[in-house]
């Protein structure tokens, strides 16, 4: 009997050790240049999210080019303490730099400050922590960049004149209020013949967005363009325009992920989807973390030369990824997230 038990235990451990060997080459082929190899640990908000999987693609590319040993891990369940635990594990593991997309701004800062105190360089990307908990924030898009980008594209689609409406997540969401401020400022400044006639909340739900868009379409026959500034509102509005039979007559643009809009873009319902290139974001996060660890990037620097991304601006302690990217019929199939 004892034999059977020990057999089971040994078999179990053999399985564990088998798993252990398979992953040692996650850093990819690298050109170690004599000195110590830098280890960068990268954390998404959650692991299964297509957005972050796409970030990781860019991160892997950066790790390969720079000869960085990349550790990638993140929460797989909704436990907010997980990010902290992973960071604490990394501190013990002795990584050189950490790059985190923060789920909980204040909560994660406790762990990140601890990492900084141990001499580990800390970068945040996608979503920031408290400023004193990290060295740099890789900012994928400023509110100004998003606001101006949306307004420019809307004006281009409408030929610089006509009525447009905005569908937002909620009237109180801080980031969206910020974007609207810049949309309006840019409109008043550059496109005085464009007129915003309505601002409707969709509670971050696709079906609510659809009914709001339907109502907008029937109430405003002169409506030329819908601007959907939260991601569920883009496919929601597209469905409304399609069902109202106004494809082509009413333009649609919005902030969202390429994958959930591909169908509508190909059908000609949605004209433009605006977002940043997530691969570039992952690339830059690892690039900046590596540069910090090597001492090539220091507080107070005004620019950073990030390989294929070129020379990027640094505003205070946030590294700007640059202008948002416009996905449309011609390029959307090249992206998978």
């Amino acid at each position, binding site marked *: 009997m004892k034999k059977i*038990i020990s057999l089971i235990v040994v078999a179990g451990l053999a399985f564990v050790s088998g798993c252990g060997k398979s992953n040692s080459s996650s850093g990819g082929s690298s050109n170690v240049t004599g000195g110590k190899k830098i280890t960068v640990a990268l954390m998404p908000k959650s692991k299964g999210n297509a957005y972050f999987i796409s970030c990781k693609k860019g991160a892997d590319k950066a790790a390969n080019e720079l000869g960085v040993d990349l550790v990638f891990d993140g929460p797989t369940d909704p436990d907010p303490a997980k990010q902290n635990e992973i960071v604490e594990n990394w501190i013990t593991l002795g990584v050189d730099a950490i790059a985190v997309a923060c789920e909980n701004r204040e909560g994660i800062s406790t762990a990140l400050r601890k990492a900084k105190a141990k001499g580990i360089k800390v970068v945040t990307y996608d979503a920031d922590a408290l400023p004193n908990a990290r060295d740099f924030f890789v900012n994928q898009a400023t509110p100004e960049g998003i606001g101006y980008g949306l307004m420019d594209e809307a004006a281009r689609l409408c030929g610089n004149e006509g009525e447009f409406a905005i569908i937002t997540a909620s009237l109180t969401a801080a980031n969206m209020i910020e974007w609207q401020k810049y949309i309006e400022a840019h409109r008043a400044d550059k496109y005085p013949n464009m007129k915003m006639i309505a601002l409707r909340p969709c509670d971050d739900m696709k079906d609510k967005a659809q009914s709001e868009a339907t109502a907008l379409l029937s109430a405003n026959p002169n409506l030329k363009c819908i601007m959907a500034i939260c991601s569920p509102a883009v496919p929601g509005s597209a469905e409304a325009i399609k069902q109202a039979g106004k494809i082509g007559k009413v333009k649609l643009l919005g902030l969202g992920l390429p994958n959930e809009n591909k169908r509508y873009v190909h059908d000609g319902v949605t004209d433009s989807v605006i977002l940043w290139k997530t691969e570039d974001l992952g690339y830059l996060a690892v690039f900046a973390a590596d540069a910090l660890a090597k001492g090539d990037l220091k507080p107070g620097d005004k620019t950073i030369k990030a390989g294929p991304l070129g020379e990027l601006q640094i505003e205070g302690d946030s590294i700007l990824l640059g202008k948002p990217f416009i996905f449309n019929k011609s390029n959307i199939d090249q992206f998978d997230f």
Partner: protein
Amino acid sequence: MHTAKQGFRAILLRHETILLFVVLLEWLYFNSVGPRFGSVDNTFDIMRHSVEIGLLALVMTPIILTGGIDLSVGSLLGLCAISFGKFWRDAGMPIPLAAACTIGIGALAGGLNATLITWLRLPPLIVTLGTFSLFRGLAEAITRGADTFTNFPASFLFLGQERWLGIPAQASSFILVSIGIWLLVHRTTFGRSFRAIGFAPEGTRYAGISVERRLAMAYVLAGIIAAVAAIIYTSRLGQAKADAGMGYELFAITAVVLGGTSIFGGIGTVHGTLLGVAAIAVLNNGLVHARQSREVAGMLTGLLLILALTSSIIPKMLASLKTRRQTLATKPIIT
């Protein structure tokens, strides 16, 4: 001599002993692949990360021993965390008073479970499934899902983040609760009756034991300790939000069952639960040091659970098979 050998063999085959070997093997394996795994710092990391779930598993043990279950402890941790934040920030209470009031909330919530289970005689699974949603819903409603409590004073954060007497500060409270629960379950008649209830509730009642009072006590205790876990959690993260402790009830139940407690009640030990907590915690931490991704942890925890359960059942099955074969062999064949 023969009996001594038998006794040794019985101890060796005991579930807890096997589990202890599993923990040791895990430790040895991870120590060989992760250079920093065996360090003091990492050992303290493991302790720090497993205290909240460990506390919940500890109080879950008497409940499962009675044949019950408490699915609401994770949600209650969330409710207590934001209550604590409310008491401190919005009601302006000093930390110790806020902590005391939070424990009061935990006791009340545990009392609600206890009342529904003992007075109305509703099944614990259904009752705590209800309060599982209720407590989390309350926490979300109070904070509207977005309000976050932070900026706690450093003296409070000490509890979750610093060392006291050389070990992580929260570990001392965990050790105290462990000893307390162990003594309660294994060394008092009160605690022993939990197992009696699990074996045969009606029988226990006929034996003159107040089953209701003891059941109620187990659920109130769970509420109180969930509140303690909430305070430690808040201190460790430096933040209280409505999503605190999400999914912790299942981790706690896993640890208890892995520790050899029968889900039908009646059988189980507190030290088994502690080993169960250790086995899961070491696995989760060790996989990071083995450069393994997190998904593997969930898979292996499941595998470990199934393995542990079967390894304690297989010997019994083999034994019964053997006796059956023997009786078959000796049985006269009637044609």
